């Protein structure tokens, strides 16, 4: 017999190694609108401002995506800096002094909003609408001849539509389709300047592209440029009514990952599916099954009238 312990006898374990405490994030002292604040190293100016209740407008920023800092609506004034700086991506540095509501800041924010509103259709972008009001923007002053991005809606599949006349080029969909979530890279920014736009290769229709219809681009789009076909059709028929809709969280029935789905329903019918951004499993992102695979719920009941509500009110 060897001395080695029988594999069947449990080897007594020592105490569990203690989990090392997370490295302490040093605090950085900065001043925001004259108020001294301490924020963790590595935080952005946006986080610092939000931390003390200052509501900074953002359009291209989203918690679950890498900041691209392109819309410039979040700019703040940094003392000693020649230009304004984007709050969403600029990290705090000791001794910074920031102004979030100076004349310069308000002018740039207003202009950004006016430039956008004069060139794209923001009617399905409630956040942008609210900012336009807040900054007293007058996009019409550029005159009726101002060039716009108006163009026909792209309807090339039965799941979602692309209305780039509403696109503010925030890059969110590209990020969601790429390294930040889906890793499919079906779409990218093409062209340059005012001609820059979101496109597949040579603008081929989605069914010919690499798109897998995860709908994650729709989930992050802030302007309604990307829209569920169901929502688009209802809007066209003027029956889309967000105020009468319910939102119910449930778990996707398809696989073991168990993504949280938020089911949006109107008049007892599912109209679209999203996922909460702060959901640790999904970070707001889903796959084609969770996102679009709900039509079966409708078909079961489609012939029977009246339709049975499938979601709790």
């Amino acid at each position, binding site marked *: 017999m060897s001395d080695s312990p029988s594999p069947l006898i449990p080897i007594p374990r020592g105490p569990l190694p203690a989990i090392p405490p997370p490295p302490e994030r040093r605090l950085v002292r900065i001043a925001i609108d004259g108020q001294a604040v301490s924020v963790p190293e590595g935080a952005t100016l946006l986080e610092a401002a939000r931390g003390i209740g200052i509501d900074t407008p953002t359009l291209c920023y989203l918690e679950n995506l890498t900041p691209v*800092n*392109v*819309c*410039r*609506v979040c*700019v703040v004034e940094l003392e000693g800096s020649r*230009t*304004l700086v*984007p709050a969403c*991506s600029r990290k705090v540095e000791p001794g910074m002094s920031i102004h979030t509501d100076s004349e*310069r800041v308000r*002018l*740039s924010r207003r*202009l*950004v909003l006016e*430039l*956008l509103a*004069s*060139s794209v259709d923001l009617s399905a972008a409630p956040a942008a609408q609210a900012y336009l009001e807040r900054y007293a923007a007058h996009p019409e*002053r*550029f*005159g009726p*001849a*101002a*060039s716009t991005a108006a163009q026909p809606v792209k309807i090339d599949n039965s799941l979602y539509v692309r209305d780039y006349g509403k696109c*503010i*080029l925030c890059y969110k969909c590209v990020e969601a389709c790429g390294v930040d979530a889906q*890793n499919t*890279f*079906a*779409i*990218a*920014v*093409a*062209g*340059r*300047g*005012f*001609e*820059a736009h979101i*496109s*597949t*290769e*040579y603008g*081929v229709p989605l069914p*010919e*592209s*690499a798109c897998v219809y995860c709908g994650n681009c729709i989930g992050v789009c802030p302007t309604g440029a990307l829209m569920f076909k169901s929502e688009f059709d209802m809007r066209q028929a003027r029956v889309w009514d967000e105020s009468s809709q319910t939102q119910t969280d449930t778990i996707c029935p398809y696989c073991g990952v168990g993504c949280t789905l938020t089911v949006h329903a109107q008049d007892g019918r599912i109209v679209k599916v999203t996922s909460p951004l702060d959901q640790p499993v999904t970070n707001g992102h889903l796959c084609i099954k969770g996102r679009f695979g709900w039509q079966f719920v409708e078909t079961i009941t489609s012939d029977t009238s009246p339709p049975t509500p499938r979601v709790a009110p």
Partner: protein
Amino acid sequence: MDLRLGAEQPTEEERSAVDGEVGSGERHRLLPVLHALQSRIGWISPGAVNHVAARLMIPPAEVFGVASFYGMFSLEPRPARAAQVCDDIACLIQGAAPQHPHVGCLGLCDRWGQPPALHAGRLLYRVGKADPASLRDYIRHAGYKALAKALEMGPDSVIREVLASKLLGRGGAAFPAGKKWQAVRASASPTRYVVCNADESEPGTFKDRVVMEGDPFAVIESMTIAGFAIGAECGYLYVRGEYPLAAERLTHAIHEARAHGVLGGNILGRGLSFDIELRRGAGAYICGEETALFNSIEGYRGEPRNKPPYPTEAGLFGQPTLVNNVETLINVPGIVLDGGAAYAAIGTAYSTGTKLYCLSGHVARSGVYEAVFGATLRELIEMAGGVAGSGRLQAVLLGGAAGAFVSPQELDTPLTFEGTRAIGASLGSAVVMLFDDTVDLKKILLRIAAFFREESCGQCVPCRIGTVRQEELLDRGGQDAIPILREVGQAMRDASICGLGQTASSAIESALNRGLLHE
């Protein structure tokens, strides 16, 4: 990565064009590959994009996104060779017909006076004297003396001399060169890069072209000294796509230098290793912006990055990078040979050394003029034979499209960084373009506005849409348009990501401020 490609297949010719340039198969080969397709096939087809995507492992949508960024690439069939006729400002006033689409300044504005003038000092003394194709001739004209001396001195001493020289960057931002060198040298990362910015695309600028065509070895030697000083083994030379002759001469110079042991491994038998890769731009002014240039080399769209981090911390391929303009770099051999203090004694206390100016427009002898810092605008114009055209000067565009118009009353301004700043202008890329009193300045301003609209990368809102509105408002004219124009200008200056948007309103505002625009 799992690529999904379209059904189109490449032709044999396309396949061979791509395969000949894929090299390591890494993404940064994308621009050379696209150049090969454009020059051999005449356009970049869907089949070719599929093949590029497969060989370089880049999604086809992104290959398309990059190809469609550059003016020199066509995504529909066209002849392999297409003539370009410049209709930018210096050519416009000589009667060039407006083109559709516009063709930006080709850096040949000095050709209106035949032959182009060259006024040489300590920087240009070899141009036109030494054979640009001969390394032997370069050495006969004091070439490679500075590199040999630098190797004797050691990297830290070289940087000390560059600091002592007070050399300021000539690419437009006037940043102290020595500080950049020092920062990269001090970085913790063992991989560093030298990038020579030879993208010269500012309308009215052609000084770097004259240097590269006339004295290519000086660029190579200067980059090698920089590489030695900061501890880099690899340099990129990014040459404007519209400068084929410069690219050809530099390529030849690189080969010669390698063959003679002054570039590559074991330089001058001293164990130093440094090599240079030449990259051609493809028709995008914005790629002269340093971080856009990095993205362009790396095979991405030439969109500027947000700063910080600055290139000295995280530049090309995310590594500490020294990026300098051609003219900045070719000052270094003289600094190494004469010492920083001697160099700093030339010019003024703040603006040291000599400067290359690009004179064009209504000037008697257009060309490149080298002058000691401190010469006045008037003296420079006199050097070039005075005002041509009607002989009555209306305005001078100083610093290029991103610069400012100055009035005839300001001709006694000393041409220094501080002197031009004092009158609300800047040296920029050292454009000095004269307009006589017959020129309709509004037309010139409209052409400048169109330039910025076309060259905006499109990334940020203030610039992408602001440059469009600026052109529209200028065109609309009238007193009510001016306040809106000014607000658009301020938002572009304050909120744009990069220098393009930040200076896109500069020339127009300078004309308004000086009452040069008559409405």
